[in-house]
């Protein structure tokens, strides 16, 4: 805000201040006046966001509103050009050591799973623990099996990703991230590429993860998930956080016109 964003000064409608409900109040992640451009295109405008440990955030908004870019900035898959981002007290800047540390703390699940097709499910899960955390192989495999059981597909360990259904692949991807024992999980539209029947099995895993107290930042249009799990829902439009509220007020009593329009569009079916 201090940066004086002249062309679009509309401030987010902070309805009721949206206090964290599930977090323990400890700061986990903070974004401060973050700006990002793709060439001339101003994709993130003056983003301010604070997330407490254990909090679950759902980010929604029309396509092109910058929600994916926002969470990709948090583990430096995208670089922000202005402002500050810090995760678990680690400032995200050009320091390669900081980037490595943040990536180890932050797990990410992608829309298209991005499993490594040349490795078995088990190898997908043990790759990073072995090469990044230097975990002994049998220990890494034990941990991998533990997380595969949690996502309910331990019997698929020896298969290749191409032999699994979309829902199974996404569950493997979640387990792969969990194997690095992250403090925060980022989800970038994890169910958008799935058949309707498979969405539930992935959401179930995510709900369970949320119950166990994982800090989660989730870009999704699954409004049912947002209602049951989220502590806060953030609505983005044209690179700005337009509205930020607890799910109940967000869905029942949206303040911003753009939010109202969006909700009426996606909830009309």
């Amino acid at each position, binding site marked *: 805000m201090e940066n004086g964003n002249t062309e679009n000064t509309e401030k987010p409608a902070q309805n009721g201040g949206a206090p964290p409900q599930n977090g323990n109040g400890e700061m986990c992640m903070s974004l401060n006046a973050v700006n990002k451009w793709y060439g001339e295109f101003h994709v993130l405008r003056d983003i301010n966001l604070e997330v407490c440990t254990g909090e679950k955030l759902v980010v929604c908004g029309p396509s092109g509103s910058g929600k994916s870019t926002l969470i990709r900035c948090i583990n430096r898959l995208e670089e922000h050009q202005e402002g500050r981002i810090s995760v678990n007290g680690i400032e995200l800047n050009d320091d390669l050591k900081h980037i*490595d540390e943040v990536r180890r703390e932050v797990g990410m699940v*992608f829309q298209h799973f991005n499993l490594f097709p040349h490795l078995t499910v088990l190898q997908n899960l043990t*790759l*990073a623990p072995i090469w*990044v955390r230097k975990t002994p192989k049998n220990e890494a495999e034990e941990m991998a099996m533990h997380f595969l059981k949690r996502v309910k597909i331990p019997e698929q360990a020896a298969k290749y990703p*191409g032999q699994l259904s979309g829902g199974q692949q996404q569950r493997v991807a979640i387990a792969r991230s969990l194997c690095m024992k992250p403090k925060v999980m980022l989800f970038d539209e994890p169910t958008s590429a799935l058949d309707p029947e498979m969405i539930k099995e992935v959401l179930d895993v995510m709900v369970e993860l949320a119950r166990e107290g994982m800090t989660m930042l989730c870009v999704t249009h699954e409004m049912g998930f947002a209602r049951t799990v989220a502590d806060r829902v953030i609505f983005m439009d044209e690179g700005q956080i337009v509205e930020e509220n607890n799910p109940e007020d967000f869905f029942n009593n949206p303040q911003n016109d753009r939010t109202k329009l969006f909700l009426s569009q996606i909830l009309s079916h």
Partner: protein
Amino acid sequence: MDDSQQQQPAALQPPKIPWRRDPAVRALFFQGALIAALLWAIVTVAGNTARNMEERGIKIGLHFFDDVAPFSIPLDFFPFWSFTLGESLYWEVFVIGVQNTIIISVFGIIGATALGFFVGVLRLSPNWLVAKFAAAYIEAFRNTPLLLQLLFWNFAVFLPLAPPPRQSWTLGESFILNKAGLYLPNPVLTGIGTVIFTVSAVAAIAAIIAMRKWAKKRQEETGKPFPLFFASLAVLIAAAVLALLFAGEQVSFEYAELKGLNYRGGARLPLIAFALWFGLTAYTAAFIAENVRGGIVAVAKGQSEAARSLGLHHGATLKLVVIPQAMRVIIPPTISQFLNLTKNSSLAVAIGYPEVVNVWAGISLNQTGQSLVIMAMTIGVYWVLSLLTSAALNYYNTRVQLRGR
């Protein structure tokens, strides 16, 4: 046929296709015609050649194999088959030619693969200068004829650069470099020396294999990596030094000496061979680099993003995630480059490297006039080499294919 069709009700009888419109008949006809045409061409060409040779009084056959070859081959490689003027026979000329083709092809393929991978990866570097340098290299080398490049390296670079024998660059008595090539001491083993060196070589290899297993096991159990490359190097050097100490008197070195105008003795790496290897490597690497770049680009961006978000570094991402997937795209066009390199080695005729086209299809054919036999054998050599290369790489390629697709 028309009669039987009329006897039965038309509805029960499938419509009869006239043979001119039957695809099976057509296929058979065209295949037969092609084979007939090919046979006719072969018989005509072979008959013509045979008649011409008969008119010139040349008897077709393999009898000339055991004749003494009345010419000298300009260079040969230590420890391989070598040529002696006035003693060596024609079949030995063939063996030497094939051997030299294989040597230059194998080393050329190794060099071109290493350099090609390196340049291909550099070309994708986020560093502007590095990427542009790699691009400039590729464009410079693949856009000029190979023959020109070989002439350039041999006659414009290496030959003028290297000193004449009398002004050789020397490093003690061991290394001597001049226009003829690089001379190294030639180890001469006698008596138990041979045994000691063989044993130490076998022991070193066994030790390295054991060490690899141990290092892998340790990494699996404790997660600690082990500097395998440097440790292996140390073992090899230690084995060589120990063998030298133990062999004592049983090993001696034959040094090259200046006799008259040239050095004699020792082990020689001919400058022409180096120039040819350098030219073939640099040229083919430019093409392989483009294959490598294409393969890496073809791997979905999400793959490296996933690896990076798991905390893998740039190098580890490339090695563990991107390159293994890129290989299935890189290999098929790279097989072609390996075959090209093998065949292109015949351009060595221009700078006088004694490979098979030069000494067999060139000198020997001129001397004997046995064009039919010699050409068939030379063609056969390239066929066999190419098919072996393809088979080996295709086998590797099937092993890196993705499963479950």
